[in-house]
């Protein structure tokens, strides 16, 4: 059995018992289990939303079969444990691509739905859930619900972004997007501050399918928010080939790195080098999809670089406003604290609405950061960030969270009470208990 972990490896939770699911008909006895259960795929959620302390994890990674793939229409149906990596292997050579992808392809379809993941094309195509046509949901009482925008509509909406709490997704069907080849035309534009970022965003959203920016979060003062804007489109040429994966075998991080590896000095060196490597204002290139969408996947288990202590991701979204106070304030606090984030990613979300009740993306700007876990200090800083985010009417992303308070959760997801009625009574997670038990008062 695999030892269950979340990607950030914080908080440290004692390993749950795992029940492996090999076939769609395997789970006939959920009612007999005397503990709560939670589906678990590839463990790419950062915090505790994929963990269920003292409960059972239903390992769905072996539910990895395709059910059908129509090469002409791009409609695909597969079991919930199929990874996006595996889908790409199968569909890219035949001229299709996943409609939405997060920054790693090692997530399952079930996980992509349960977290309603987003990617570089959110401003145009919304979340993963926007492309799902239907799925089958197994409830602990043995019911198998066919969910779509027409049938069992409420369960459809609750399960998209539902953090695995509404039952087990057995299979799902969604639309792929057509591509001419497997390459992306990329423009990298250096920007020297946040205002420039917003200018480029405004110019890019119309003409570019994919946009994302890296921010040097150690830069202060007039350089605050400097970074590199990476925008791209699928290459339209019919004459380039569609290779399944151009990636060499990933290099694996074998052991926990010593904790001093990622320190302020290496972080500063990395960030400054990255910024000045883009010495030209604009750089054009055509690259295979792997390095563009999945720059970190070449390093298998890169999370171990943070060492045993683990790390925290922090991603929030705030509505657009005139001076983008929250983004500015968070970035300047990080820069002034000196305890920067190794990778800071900034992106504008669009208006495409997801069917998901508890979906995180909403119109505005999102900033994703990661921090090595330095105990109380880190938690306190993030608590302060929460205040800034909520002053601006923002929200925190559960898939990346390991520490938000119940109050923060409620402010991020005011609809959680409506969602709650669709939770399967047998299902729970460490995350859910953490953020809702205090809200339920005495019980």
């Amino acid at each position, binding site marked *: 059995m695999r030892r269950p972990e979340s990607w950030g490896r914080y908080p440290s939770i004692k390993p749950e018992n795992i029940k492996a699911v090999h076939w769609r008909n395997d789970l006939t006895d959920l009612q007999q289990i005397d503990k709560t259960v939670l589906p678990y795929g590839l463990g790419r959620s950062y915090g505790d939303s994929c963990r269920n302390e003292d409960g059972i994890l239903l390992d769905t990674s072996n539910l990895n079969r395709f059910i059908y793939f129509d090469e002409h229409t791009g409609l695909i149906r597969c*079991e919930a444990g199929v990874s996006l990596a595996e889908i790409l292997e*199968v569909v890219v050579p035949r001229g299709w691509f996943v409609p939405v992808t997060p920054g790693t392809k090692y997530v399952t379809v079930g996980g992509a739905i349960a977290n309603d993941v987003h990617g570089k094309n959110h401003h145009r195509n919304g979340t993963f859930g926007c492309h799902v046509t239907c799925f089958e949901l197994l409830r602990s009482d043995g019911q198998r619900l066919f969910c779509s925008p027409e049938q069992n509509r409420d369960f459809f909406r609750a399960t998209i972004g539902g953090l695995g709490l509404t039952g087990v997704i057995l299979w799902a069907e969604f639309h792929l997007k057509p591509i001419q080849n497997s390459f992306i035309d990329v423009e990298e534009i250096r920007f020297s501050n946040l205002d420039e970022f917003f200018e480029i965003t405004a110019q890019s959203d119309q003409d570019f399918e994919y946009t994302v920016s890296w921010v040097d979060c150690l830069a202060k003062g007039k350089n605050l928010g400097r970074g590199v804007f990476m925008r791209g489109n699928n290459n339209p040429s019919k004459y380039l080939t569609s290779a399944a994966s151009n990636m060499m075998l990933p290099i694996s991080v074998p052991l926990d790195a010593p904790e001093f590896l990622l320190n302020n000095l290496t972080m500063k060196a990395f960030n400054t080098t990255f910024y000045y490597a883009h010495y030209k204002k604009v750089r054009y290139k055509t690259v295979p999809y792997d390095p563009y969408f999945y720059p970190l996947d070449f390093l298998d288990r890169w999370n171990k670089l943070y060492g045993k202590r683990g790390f925290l991701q922090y991603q929030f979204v705030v509505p657009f406003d005139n001076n983008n106070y929250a983004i500015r304030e968070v970035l300047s606090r990080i820069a002034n604290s000196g305890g920067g984030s190794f990778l800071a990613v900034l992106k504008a979300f669009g208006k495409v609405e997801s069917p998901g009740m508890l979906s995180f993306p909403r119109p505005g700007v999102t900033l994703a950061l990661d921090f090595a876990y330095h105990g109380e200090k880190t938690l306190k800083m993030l608590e302060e960030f929460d205040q800034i985010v909520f002053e601006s009417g923002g929200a925190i992303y559960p898939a990346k969270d390991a520490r938000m308070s119940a109050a923060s959760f409620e402010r991020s997801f005011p609809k959680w009470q409506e969602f709650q009625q669709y939770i399967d009574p047998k299902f729970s997670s460490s995350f859910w208990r953490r953020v809702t038990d205090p809200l339920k008062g005495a019980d």
Partner: protein
Amino acid sequence: MFMTKVLIVGATSAIAHETAKLMAKDGAELFLVGRTADKLQAVQDDLKARGAKRVESLVLDINDFSRHQELVDKALQSLGGLDTVLIAHGTLPDQRAIEQDVAATILEFNNNCTSAISLLTILANYFEKQKRGVIGVISSVAGDRGRQSNYVYGAAKGGLNVFLQGLRNRLAASRVAVVTIKPGFVDTPMTAHLKKGPLFASAEKVGGDVYKAMKKGQNVLYTPWFWQGIMLIIKSVPEAIFKKLKL
């Protein structure tokens, strides 16, 4: 070797499915045999989506020896010939339990040895006449030496190994390759109840090895590779010492 028209027996086994995925990617035509209809359907759909040119299937209990001729005829008929066979069915018994049960012991022999021998007897004559093709059979490292913890399974696989050796010898003149596949511990539903250690390999890794070995027409495959060394050592321990070990 070309692997274009393929019969897979025990097609829902994890190793067989992983091997079949690679064949499907090459656009092979596949005929799948398995015992459980819904599982077989799931595997059939999967291989089709992955690019197999055609996938047909037959639900059959492999211990129904009277239907083996029918099985082979149906495969030949639906694919219009055969150039590849992968026999992958098997069960892992609880050694302690079957020591008290003659019928269960014999059943394990049928599952892991006799049924394959019956099928191969029919298939060998077809391949011998055709003078080309590859026959892969999933055996086990457990067949290399009898150990108290697993000797019924081991004996069945050992019997199978010797049969395959002889068959390889016979079919060599017809240029038909017989590949004896000896996996070590593989993380599959068959071993779900065992505690996993560092020696366990994924079905995906083993399936990749099987595919390559069959393509090459290799004689014997240990997978993962290090089992060849392990078994060499285990086989070389003198019986006087071996019988006292708790293995």
